[in-house]
């Protein structure tokens, strides 16, 4: 049985979205040229994960998974709902939730927090296609977190882990601009290798017992 803290810290370090699962690599590679933009995208990812994971969690536990619709039974006159298993629909539901939440968040932020919108605005549309968001939802489903708290801890932890990864690599990429990287490796190639080396360094946190 894992403690909530355990889940949280694991999600940041040893099960880091980037280094352990390579999720969200596209935007990670594209937006990590400076620390500032990396930070902006990272915050946006935390934000969206923090919002979508709980929603998808509710969806999973009260609609999708086998027996999840038990609450319909029986006062509402629906029988046999406890055996309904809609989990085959989870992909489509999750992605729909994510896409619409990102839209909604974007509109809300623009309306109520223009300053925040200024900082995150350009990143939010990028997020819908960021695998780490759907990946977060799918891991949440796969690992069957038993309480809402755990799911939220996982979501936030994953987001923070992603932020750390992108900010670290952005700083490194700023540093290696001075390096004399072989031409064939410039840009993408060296970023892959750095990420791999960072992954090795991050392994120090694997297996930490909280």
């Amino acid at each position, binding site marked *: *049985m894992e403690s909530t803290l355990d889940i949280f810290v694991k999600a940041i370090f*040893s099960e880091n979205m980037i280094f352990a699962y390579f999720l969200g690599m596209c935007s990670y590679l594209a937006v990590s040229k400076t620390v500032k933009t990396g930070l902006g995208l990272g915050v946006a990812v935390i934000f969206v994960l923090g919002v979508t994971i709980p929603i998808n969690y509710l969806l999973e536990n009260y609609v999708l998974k086998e027996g999840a619709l038990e609450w319909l039974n029986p006062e509402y006159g629906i029988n046999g709902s406890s055996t309904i298993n809609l989990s085959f*629909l989870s992909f489509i539901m999750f992605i729909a939730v994510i896409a619409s939440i990102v839209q909604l968040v974007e509109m809300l932020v623009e309306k109520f927090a223009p300053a925040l919108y200024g900082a995150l605005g350009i990143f939010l549309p990028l997020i819908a296609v960021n695998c780490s968001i759907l990946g977060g939802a799918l891991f949440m489903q796969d690992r069957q977190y038993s*309480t809402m708290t755990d799911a939220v801890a996982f979501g936030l932890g994953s987001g923070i882990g992603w932020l750390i990864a992108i900010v670290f690599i952005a700083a490194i990429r700023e540093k290696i601009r001075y390096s004399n990287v072989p031409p064939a490796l410039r840009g993408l190639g060296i970023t892959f290798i750095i990420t791999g080396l960072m992954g090795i360094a991050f392994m120090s946190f694997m297996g930490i017992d909280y």
Partner: protein
Amino acid sequence: MAINKESNAYTFGFSIFLVVVVGAILSSLSLGLKPLKDKNAEVKKQIDILNAIGVDADRSNAQELYAQYVGNNTFVVSAQGEKLEGEDAFALDVQKQHRDKTIAEEARKFPVFVANKDGQTMDVLPTVGKGLWGPIWGFVAVGDDMETIVGASFDHKTETPGLGAEIKNTSFEEQYIGAKMTSNITVVKDGSGKLDAQKVDGITGGTITSKGVEEMMNRTMAVYAAYFSKTKI
């Protein structure tokens, strides 16, 4: 045809059409494949149970062998070592239960699969614990005397290959054969496992996983031992 593709009505209609078609395809596919999927899950568990009693099985013959050795002879024990009535042992997912924080430890249920092999009755007991990176689990077979282990098989999801992952190896599993489940079985590092039935040589470099197996075994076996000690009398 002069349908305005951008009109609200069209958009709406198109969407509904799409949802209906997709929904129909997906649900029929899902329903159609459900028996197969269910069977797969079932077979996987059967293979594990069969392995614990030393029967090699694969997906093609598992069901047959399972029916031959185990059949429906199963029951469920409570955490206090009482036999519970009206539970389906096979459907009980001990891993899920282990992970689910909403179930108190005292409320956990422990299935028992009674197998019959070469005239010997064996109780196959599932066990779940935690390794270095993630969950580990296994099935232990206990012989006629209800205390000597006659077979064990362990598995894991994410242990380090070459280290923790070695708990899957027959050479590690076989060390448990002959140990008594009624008292603690210790995992040791100094190689003395060969000399003492209650000691098991840990995996070199896989200390944490080995210790995880030790903890898992001692915790689960205590529950079953409580049950067996009541039945034996």
